[in-house]
């Protein structure tokens, strides 16, 4: 067992993975032609400051493009060109990031179909989240000695509702690995996915007002490591938009039908679930599900009757949908299904 002296990673060493949104449609359309350069002017010094906070801090930058995602920078790789001298006041890391960014954008452009009307302007957040999580998994498997990982999402473009399933899967695996996802949304509207992500994983969600003051906001809120967050008070969201999207149309819905085996949500009644196929098994009891309806305390969510049976959490007795009450306990994201008779026990 590594003793305290031999473990170089103290509590405040962090591994920060930054997901940078490089959606050209969004950045090009922002008011002020130089929006992206302004953005870079704020973010790159912030990344440098992260590396300065602690000698052992590690930094990974991933670009979130429209058609692809890629790693831009990894501070733990030995022998990269950061040793080369800084030019014009830009340190070597940043130069490297910029270079890689240019290459990435060129690649991304090649991947996109030319002369296509810009129908979608959403970045592939799910892809970059997956890349980040894979990197973190690799780090976690190297052994018990590693810095504490967290993810910072710098999101500019709005949510793509078609990525709902993939993003939720990524969020749950982050929750399971206990990796907080911080979100800094520089776009014009709130991102429901990132709100949920930060809420579930225990991260911070912030939507700064001014792009000029982004550096201040980043260094105030997002530079803190996980250990210090226990003593510091960070902004918490006043409300989280918890709406789920249906699996067939990927549209956000408030009420829907749920398959009792795999818990896929549908907006219309289906006799057969498209995810798990037709099955008549009664699932085991005691499952939790990421679907809440507002922040109301113990509100009753009525799902209309469906063909499948669900089991009551308390007595284990299978009942048809009509008899079930679905409780939404406050501050948690789980759906508990009990029969009416047993609901008094909850």
């Amino acid at each position, binding site marked *: 067992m590594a003793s305290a002296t031999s473990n170089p990673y103290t509590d405040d060493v962090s591994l920060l993975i930054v997901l940078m949104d490089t959606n050209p449609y969004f*950045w090009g359309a922002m008011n002020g032609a130089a929006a*992206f350069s302004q953005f870079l002017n704020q973010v790159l010094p912030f990344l440098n400051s992260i590396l300065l906070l602690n000698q052992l801090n590690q930094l990974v930058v991933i670009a979130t493009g429209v058609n692809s995602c890629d790693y831009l920078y990894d501070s733990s790789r030995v022998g990269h060109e950061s040793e080369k001298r800084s030019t014009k006041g830009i340190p070597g890391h940043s130069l490297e990031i910029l270079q890689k960014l240019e290459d990435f954008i060129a690649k991304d452009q090649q991947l996109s179909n030319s002369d296509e009307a810009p129908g979608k302007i959403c970045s592939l957040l799910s892809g970059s989240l997956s890349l980040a999580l894979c990197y973190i998994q690799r780090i976690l498997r190297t052994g018990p000695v590693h810095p504490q990982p967290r993810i910072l999402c710098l999101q500019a*473009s709005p949510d793509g*509702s078609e990525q709902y399933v993939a993003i939720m899967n990524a969020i749950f695996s982050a929750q399971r690995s206990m990796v907080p996802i911080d979100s800094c949304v520089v776009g014009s509207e709130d991102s429901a996915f990132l709100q949920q992500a930060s809420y579930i994983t225990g991260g911070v969600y912030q939507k700064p007002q001014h792009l000029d003051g982004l550096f201040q906001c980043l260094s105030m809120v997002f530079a803190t490591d996980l250990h210090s967050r226990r003593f510091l008070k960070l*902004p*918490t969201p006043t409300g989280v938009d918890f709406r789920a999207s249906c699996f067939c*149309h990927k549209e956000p819905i408030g009420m829907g039908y749920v398959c009792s085996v795999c818990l896929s949500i549908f907006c219309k009644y289906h006799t057969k679930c498209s*995810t798990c196929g037709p099955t008549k098994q009664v699932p085991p009891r005691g499952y939790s599900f990421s679907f809440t309806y507002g922040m109301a305390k113990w509100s*009753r969510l009525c799902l209309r009757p469906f063909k499948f049976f669900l089991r009551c959490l308390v007595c284990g007795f299978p009942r048809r949908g009509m008899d079930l009450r679905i409780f939404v306990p406050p501050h948690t994201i789980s759906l508990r299904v009990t029969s009416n008779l047993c609901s008094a026990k909850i």
Partner: protein
Amino acid sequence: MEPPVVTMRAKYKASGPKDPGVAGVLTMRDDSFIFRPNDPSSSVKLDVSFRCIKGHKFSKEGSKQALLNLTQDKGGGYMFEFANFKDRDVCRDLVGRVLGRLQCLPPSDQSAQVVPAQPTTQHDNQLSMAEMEQRMNLLREDSELQKLHRQLVIGGVLTETEFWATRKNLLDDAAHKASKQRAGFKSAMLADVRPLTDGRTNKVTFSLTPEIIHQIFAEKPAVHQAFLKFVPSKMSERDFWTKYCRAEYLHRTKNSVAAAAEAAEDEELAVFLKHDDILASEARRKIRRVDPTVDMAADLGDDYSHLPGHGILRDGSKESVDSESELPKRTLLQDLNRHAAVVLEGRTLDVELGDTRTVAEALARSKQAEVATETSDETENQKRLERVSQMTEIEDLQAPRSLPYAPLCIKDPREYFDSQRANAFKATGDTGSGVNKDCCHLSTKQAYESLRAQILEVKSVGFKDPIVIPDLALKVLNDVNQQLSSTDPQLGKNPQATVLDMLPHRTKEELLQHWTSIQELLRHFWSSYPLTTTFLHAKVNRVKDAMAQIYRKLPEVKESVQSEFRHQVSLLVKPMLQVLDEAFKHYDAEMQKRSTKTMSKVGMTGLGVFYTRTGGYYTVKYEVLP
């Protein structure tokens, strides 16, 4: 067959045995006895029902008078002297029979007191005592249930059966729990019976209860076997136990010579004094079957009866060199070990401890069943070898065995993961904001070009200096600080803590109590519809009144709370009020429907009215007569 009526000459002694007594005739019947004196002028006439007689006493055979005393409840009694003991015995037997019969029947006036102090329904007499017990137990254990019960049932809103109708599973659980648990043997060594010695009369009294007897059988299989063999064929149970106790007494005292002498005389006694061979053979058999790898079930030390030189003897002396006597000495340790082993094994019998014979037989049967299910020695050996070979594997040296995961099976991955392009287009179009409108005019090429240009700009120009204008930085700082201070300090701190925990204790209890009663009442309310009988009508009215009461109480709860919690409490109370409102609305609608029906019925007098019955409901058909 005893005659139902007994007539004897007897003397009635009113004040005790010294009284010369009034001669007369005593007639005893099934339910009463009558005494008529020979002398018609005497005032002593008795006609007493046996119900007043609680017991009877009689003098022993061989004493001066043959007396029979019929004692009453309050202490008085009727004493009769008979001419001879035979007569007295006949009367005594009759009295005994009658009293026995009377005491078996439950007295009729006691039933009124057994009725529970709760409102009774027509099903009360179908309740068994056991179920009553269970209900009381449940109410005692669960204080919330008790409160609910008190409020609703004793308040007259619901009846017992209705209350318990939905809680059948609770009662079943309780029944299960009650029946499953068995008490084990006591830890104290009951089999080591200590007698009461009476110095004055030189009597040694052993008292054997069924519990002690059960333990003796469990601990000393030789005694058990002897019991089965000898009783009742060779000797009565009482004699058997007398012999056993004598043997124990001899052990206890230092009387080894006397013990040998007695053993020589009485072979049955010798059984109790000898070694317990059965125990020894059991121990040996267990040793043979021991798994050498881990199992500590038995080892050589179990055959302690043959190991010399261990322990302190029962009579306190150290072991003497004299081992000539056949009677081996029992040591304290042996007895303790045996007792401990039996206690840990637990009770194998479920039989009620009453009759010794049945207990012994049941124990013998269970032992036989055990032996029968035990496999033979060879198979045991085989199994043991297999176990040994399994145990010698060293787990560390083996490859890690990972559990098989159920493979993820998605029927149509494309549809699950990917978007449907047309829908996505529509979706973004719907939820599109000003951004969408803005970038429509940019083509792909233009967008990328501008991005690239900006990157180049940063590369060439370098970072701004300063990165952030100080004033702006200060503004951002203040904004964030304000945001932090304005948010609720409790919010988000501890996701597990609920609003209820923050409220004062009394309010929380009240709210929870109201909520459980509302749930219970609603359950009954909604299950009563549609209203078909007057009973349901009455029930619904009662339930509605109770709900109205709670409805009135809820705003009071809100008012009673401090202002900082008032918002939270109102949020909590709102769904309760909503749910009650729904119920009231439904009730009112039903009442209205009913009243319009009756009104229209009344208005239709003079016209023919047909009533037809469809599916359990009455529908009214109106027909206009010409």
